[in-house]
């Protein structure tokens, strides 16, 4: 279980997260929804060690992640697929995948994991020698997810994987997320695509202005009056 307890996070003097707490249970799909600027990406960046909370703790399997550097967090199996993909544009798809597997553990199984990723995304195998920057938006998302999988994650955190994709591709991406979850990977999904993600998740939290305001199962939240009004436009 990944447990975030009461974190306050700042950019310089600007506080953007206020006493945020939530937990991701093993093997579930947990969704964090919220509007632009609610602090979703900041939350993921703090878990992966790019930012340090000024207050509060982050724990995974008995280890304090908030005390670790990003490479150590990956070593614990908590892996972040960043917003807007952030591929290495001038490197090939294959090199990008390799960059996902730098931890000693992942390195040992690199060839094997790559086979698995290519099985999951046959498109990536066809494009493996192509520069990542020349892929289409949907392909880039697959490459970014594939790169995350190369780290052999126990928990995979997706930051708005549907961003900028056509509706039909959004559906595909969510199918992939579900499939990865079925293979035993715990999923923490950050999304603005509230309707679709609430339908597919186990549980969800709603983040507003840097604070957790609601939590519940996907179904509960879909029937919640506030969620209906603020996010589903009903």
């Amino acid at each position, binding site marked *: 279980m990944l447990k975030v307890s009461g974190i306050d996070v700042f950019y*310089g003097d600007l506080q953007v997260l206020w006493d945020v707490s939530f937990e991701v249970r093993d093997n579930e799909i947990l969704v964090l929804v919220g509007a632009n600027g609610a602090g979703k990406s900041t939350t993921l960046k703090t878990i*992966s060690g*790019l930012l340090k909370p000024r207050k509060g703790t982050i724990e995974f399997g008995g280890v304090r992640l908030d005390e670790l*550097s*990003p*490479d150590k967090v*990956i*070593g614990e199996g908590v892996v*972040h697929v*960043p917003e807007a993909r*952030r*591929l*290495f*544009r*001038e*490197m090939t798809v294959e*090199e990008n995948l*390799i*960059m*996902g597997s*730098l*931890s000693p553990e992942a*390195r040992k199984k690199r060839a094997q994991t790559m086979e698995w990723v290519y099985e999951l995304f046959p498109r990536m195998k066809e494009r493996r020698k192509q*520069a990542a920057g020349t892929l289409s938006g949907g392909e880039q998302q697959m490459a970014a997810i594939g*790169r995350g999988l190369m*780290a052999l994650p126990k928990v995979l955190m997706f930051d708005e994987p549907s961003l900028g994709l056509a509706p039909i591709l959004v559906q595909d991406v969510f199918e992939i997320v579900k499939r990865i979850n079925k293979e035993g990977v715990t999923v923490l999904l950050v999304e603005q695509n509230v309707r679709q993600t609430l339908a597919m998740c186990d549980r969800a939290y709603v983040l507003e202005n840097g604070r957790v305001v609601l939590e519940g199962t996907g179904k509960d939240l879909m029937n919640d009056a506030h969620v209906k009004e603020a996010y589903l436009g009903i």
Partner: protein
Amino acid sequence: MDVFLQTLVAGVLKGGLYALIGIGMTLIMGVMGIINLAHGQLMMLAMYVTFVLNTMGVDPYFSLFVAMPLLFLLGVGLQKFLLNPLIKADTILPENQVLMTVGIGMALTEIVRFGFTSDYKYITTTYSNETFFLGKISFSMALTIAFGIAIAFTVAMFFFLIKTDLGRSIRATAQDKDAATLMGVNTGRITVITFGLGSALVAAAGCLLAPVYYIFPDLGGPFTAKAFIITILGGLGSTVGAIFGGVTLGLAESMGATYFGMEYEDIIGLTIFVLVLLFLPGGFKRLTKV
């Protein structure tokens, strides 16, 4: 025709060395996003290392094995203790790192002047003035050996950048530092290693140049300028571009010296530099990938 071929050969041989100087600069540029204005001074230091070793009877080419590790360590130290601390204070602009490199360059020059005076030193070896002929074209033995070694280092560098995890991490850091951090790359360590490597490469160029060049404390400045020109020609941060840039500068200088006169050598280089800035602002990088 012979004159032209002779000029061409001289230019390419020199270009190989320039490429080595340029690759070091371009690596630093790519990863740190700054121009290292102490680059030529680091080369000058390596030439003095070569000179000192030579007075003890060590061949310049063997001094590679001393000068390169030494300059690597110096580069590591400079990045770690003088340049990286500047990044941490976020009120400080990246320009201040460039200013720091200017300071480092001046300090190196004056330290060397203190130890060795401003007098010209030179290293004479059996092959310093030796030439051999292919047809009617003469080849300077020292420059030809230097060219061969420079090519070997360049190829090794490419192999390292493309085939090893550390090399890939360096390229990844240059392309997207935050994303590299997310992959578990310690980007602070990468900047330190990169500055070390850049210094070691320019040290190699210094050792190779030592048998055919005068050695004096102020030669750093002009070579920093050359490195800068090569890097701009190649498209900032592109390694393949740096090779093109190096060879172009070598050829241009050599052509200029032959067809306009020796005194035009540097002017030609600068002219090309300005033309590239005006008409091909991305440098040769547009033609390449790595």
